[in-house]
């Protein structure tokens, strides 16, 4: 059954940012939101994906030759 496990394989971007191993967001069928059972993160699916991808970017940050002079 869908409710016996996280409904959608979305990783919590807030826990990910704290380098806590994948915490999958749970789906609330009442309002369609995705929420984390560890921290207080809650979002729509689109926002959760965007936040996760934004956080992935931090691995790429650093001094680069493309920085504005």
């Amino acid at each position, binding site marked *: *059954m*869908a*409710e*016996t*496990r996280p409904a959608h394989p979305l990783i919590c971007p807030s826990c990910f940012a704290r380098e806590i191993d994948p915490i999958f967001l*749970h789906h*609330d069928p009442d*309002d369609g*939101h995705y*929420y984390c*059972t*560890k*921290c*207080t*993160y*809650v979002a729509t699916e689109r926002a959760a994906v965007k936040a996760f991808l934004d956080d992935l970017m931090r691995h790429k940050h650093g001094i680069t030759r493309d920085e504005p002079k």
Partner: protein
Amino acid sequence: MAQFHANIIHRADSAARVQPVFDYQWRAARERGLVSTTLVTLPALLDERLCESIRARWEGSRDELGLHCHEMKGPALTERHGTRETALWLMPRTTRAAVLDDMVDLFVRRFGRPPAAVGSYLLDAWTLAYLERRHPSVRVAITNCFEEGVKMFRGNNQNWHLFSDGGPWGPFWPSRDTALKPAGDVAEAIDIVALPHLNRDMILALASRDDLFASHPLNLFRAKINEGADSPYLWRFLQQWEDQAVLNGWSYLSLFVSSPWLTPGHWAVPDMAHGRRLYEKTLDWLVEHQTAGRVRVDTMSGFGATFRAQVAPGDAQICQWRDELRQAKRETIWVVNSHYRAALDFNVGGAITDLRAYDGRVDGNMGPECPRLANGNYPYLAAAELRGGAYQNGHHAELACGDARVSLLNRRGHATVRNVAPRDAAAAGAWEIDGGEVTWELGGQRVVLRTRWRVDASGDIRVERTLEPAADPSLDWRLTEVFVGSWGTWDLPEDLRGITLGAWDAAGGELARIVSAYASQSATVAGAARVSVAVPPIGVTLSLVADPAGPVPTAGHLAEGTLFAPVYRLSLTHRLTPGIPVITWLKLAPLTP
């Protein structure tokens, strides 16, 4: 009538650069007609000129002066008392006593009377009992920082050795045995009203660092949840503390900002003009609410006297907290009495995710003479945040139909709390927590399950779950109440050897017993009416007990922890009949030899 109380507390430090800031704080409160309490530190007491200016401002006012046991540093300590231990509660006892005697003596010389109010970040039972015995003028003290412990230690880059996890969040009567435990009766209580250092966000106290989310407007800059000189979160936060008075008959707020936090250049506040403006807005909020009769701003001693008149040792307190940071659905309900402190997290279906069992009266004294040294955390039986999440630590339940099974952790819910014994009728406090109707799909069926908890001043939590009458009665519905536990004060596992799991039938006959030895032992027994765990290191037993008036459960299950999964597990499985409630008691008691 429910009353919301507030203290405005300042700290008088000796550093020259913060003295004008302290003036600013005092003036800001007084110009608004707000009474305040100023706690004077040891270095400040040694500064004659500073004390003269404090005395000049204090005389003839309604404000209060007291002592603060922080800023213990410099010659005041090293030369006068021969220690570099800056935390009073961690000093050797002879030094601690000498410092307190010195401070009281200086206070009397400076201000002409002994102090009634004392502040610290943490005070153990030994220190409080010393103050009670040696300095009986002290009637109220700031004794603990709610849930400042493991998570805050990690967040502070392992650099702030203050450990006070596991105590009450609000004012309480401290136990003579261990100061983070509320006393059960007058004989057990130290005759000093214990206050929290700050009010905390009661969800982020579990999910995050609660020093960043507290009744301390400047810490909101540290958390970056200000919007310039404003923080909508703060107004919602304050409102929730006012709301708690409805459930308890009273509520308390501590606004305590020490002067360094309002001094330009503080590392956490990029623009101090914004910082001071938010501080002043908080005072304005109190003025507005006081004018409307919604809050009573008092001195520490004034509130302490009110607390003495209204709350007796042994009373319970409850707190229902919404997620005000994200303004989302998450809710946590906290209950504390002299037997336990529990957090019910409705983000995971009302599971008890943090449980401190106080009946073992674990010695919480600190200092070099004590085995605990600096660790003042009261041990947990379950702490999901520290030990693997709600599936791995805490109380929850599973619903099954045939081969299909679902954990009630997998749906967030909403709770309604009802006071079932108004404080004028039964002062100890009793509440029903209704988790409402939650719809589940399993075994091809769509059914509604409702859970109600009842909590009061006893060590028993009543859990009632009812499958709605519309469910198909011909199916094999089962409910399993589960407790997954451990013990400890940190996020690392402690030794589980010697922890004993047992199962008994309704007549009290023993059905199974497991003494933990990391041997992968488990047992499933039919007809168990009670399953228990005895945890000698913290001196308590926890039992899941089927209600004697109900049917006997179909099975009890026990499993010891392993080294790689160091949690024990006990459960009771009931057969569910639609429309008929199943009642289980979660009982905490002292471990008797």
